[in-house]
């Protein structure tokens, strides 16, 4: 086992463990903190794949901006145990059944996917994620979605102003 593999397994275990902890934490603030750990672990994976730009963006945008907003919202909402909505047993039952079905599908998917057998991640040597290549692809092949997403942001901005402004 070389260093890269050790790092890979370490990050994977960290990511999965943190993701499970997000679900099992009682306090929403703790959930958010565990989620930040997930993002850090995934950023580590990006670095292993030689995608430094993606790793940094993931940290800045998700762990930095979005999660801080999340924390603010949760703290402002002042959630406590009493405020939790009542859960019916049949809801839990339905959730377990449908979630379990989905788990079976996903497990069989990964197990039987012919696309995955005999393939390896481009650890350490891939150069797709480098900022230079990313920029080239973004402004040549994918320039149209890049431009069109500006409409999306514009509408979101208009919406924020419409909702936030005092009447």
């Amino acid at each position, binding site marked *: 086992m070389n260093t890269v593999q050790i790092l890979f397994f370490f990050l994977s275990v960290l990511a999965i463990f943190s993701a499970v902890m997000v679900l099992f934490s009682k306090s929403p603030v703790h959930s958010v903190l565990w989620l930040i750990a997930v993002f850090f672990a995934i950023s580590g994976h990006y670095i292993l794949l030689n995608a430094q730009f993606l790793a940094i963006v993931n940290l800045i945008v998700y762990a930095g901006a979005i999660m801080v907003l999340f924390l603010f919202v949760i703290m402002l909402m002042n959630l406590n145990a009493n405020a939790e909505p009542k859960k019916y047993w049949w809801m839990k039952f339905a959730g377990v059944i449908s979630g379990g079905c989905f788990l079976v*599908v*996903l497990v*069989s*998917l990964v197990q*039987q*996917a*012919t*696309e*995955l057998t005999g393939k390896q991640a481009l650890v350490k040597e891939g150069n797709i994620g480098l900022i230079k290549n990313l920029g080239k692809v973004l402004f*040549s*092949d*994918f*320039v*149209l*979605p890049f431009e*069109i*997403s500006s*409409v*999306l942001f*514009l*509408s*979101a901005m*208009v*919406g924020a*102003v*419409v*909702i936030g*402004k005092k*009447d």
Partner: protein
Amino acid sequence: MNAIIFSAIMGVVMMFSGIITEKKSAISFVAVVALFILLAANIANTYGLCSISINTHDLLHFSKFGLYFNSILITAALIFVLLSGSAVEKVGNYAADYYALIFFVLCGTSILTSFNGLLMLFLGIEIMTIPLYILTGADKKNLKSNEASLKYFLMGSFSTGIMLMGIALVYGANGSFALTTPAAVPNSAGVIPVSFLLVGGYILLFVSMCFKVSAAPFHFWTPDVYDGAPTVFTAFMSTIVKAAGFFAFLVLFEANATLLGPSWKIMLTFVIIATLLIGNITAVFQQSVKRMLAYSSIAQAGFMLFALYTYNDLAKEGILLYAVAYCLATIGFFAVLVKVKDHSFDGFNGLAKAQPVLAFSAVVFLMSLAGIPLTAGFFAKYYMLAAVIKSGGSFWIVLVALVFAAISVYYYFKVIQAMYFKSGDPEIMEVSSGYKTAIVLVSLLVIAIGVLPSIVLNWFYF
């Protein structure tokens, strides 16, 4: 490409119109003009008269079908603004911004009628729904509107997450965002391997698209959102947005239905029956007309899903006709509903005496929704079911659909009964003569299409 660019520009124009003028009727007028320009641009694109063409790297594909469908949607938006423009002005202080958001939604629908890849599908869906979250919550003082907006936002983002997961799996299998998958090479035993990643991805995409078009069992958001949103915007999102969602659904699975094998038909049959069942049965028990329309829109979605079940030419014509009939009738009836202050069934009591013109138009729209002959809705339903028969689909599903269509007559006619056979003094907002003319014209259009559906369908071939 014209429609995408123009609708984005018109959205910005609408925002500026709010700065230049304070008069709300002027803003509505600008919106109508902008929609005419948008429609002209899209029609020019359809016939290649003057179209902006950009190297889209195969991310967008402009077919006659898609462009024509987009023209229908823009026309529906035009009718919506003409009929309900005054109601949009009354929702809040930001009429210009609401119109801007409506144009951004139209930008999203233009993308959805021309997408040729999962990336553009995702962008189209997002551009279409994000302005809707805001329009739903436009009535800021109303707690129900706030609740609907937040609910829609949370559920919508969750289903977008499911869609992204599906896209990620499909990308993992194909290595591209293309809609069509390269034909699988048979392995040494001569068996064509099933790509499990693709199947998983498309099942997730199916689920999220079902959510977007409010097909059961992913419909739970629909009644609350449609009921809570300001009535005008309910009219907009239950028609134009839904029709665009169906178009995207159709294009996405036209290319990939064979991928899922025989289980595809089983899955779809289940969804269709569940949608028809839940939509129609629950609509029967509603006390509020607005909520009844929300459930009826679920039921109508069940009929539109038949286009996915078949995929022949008849189904294509059917979805076109269904989009026209459903949009016209729903927009028209909501325009009547906006004028009635009490949205319960009793609020309609005696409307025929107080406002005969409004009541007559409402009858035409309701009959079209129920699928009574001589209205557009009849041929829409007829084409859908005929397509199933033609494709050799099972006959019992058609029978089930017919039974549910018969049930729908009950709750639509309950409104007609209240208007004509019950006496009361309905509270009605001021009705202008221009509005009356417009609504009568729309109801005449519904009848005209019901008599001659070819006036819609012929354009598809010329």
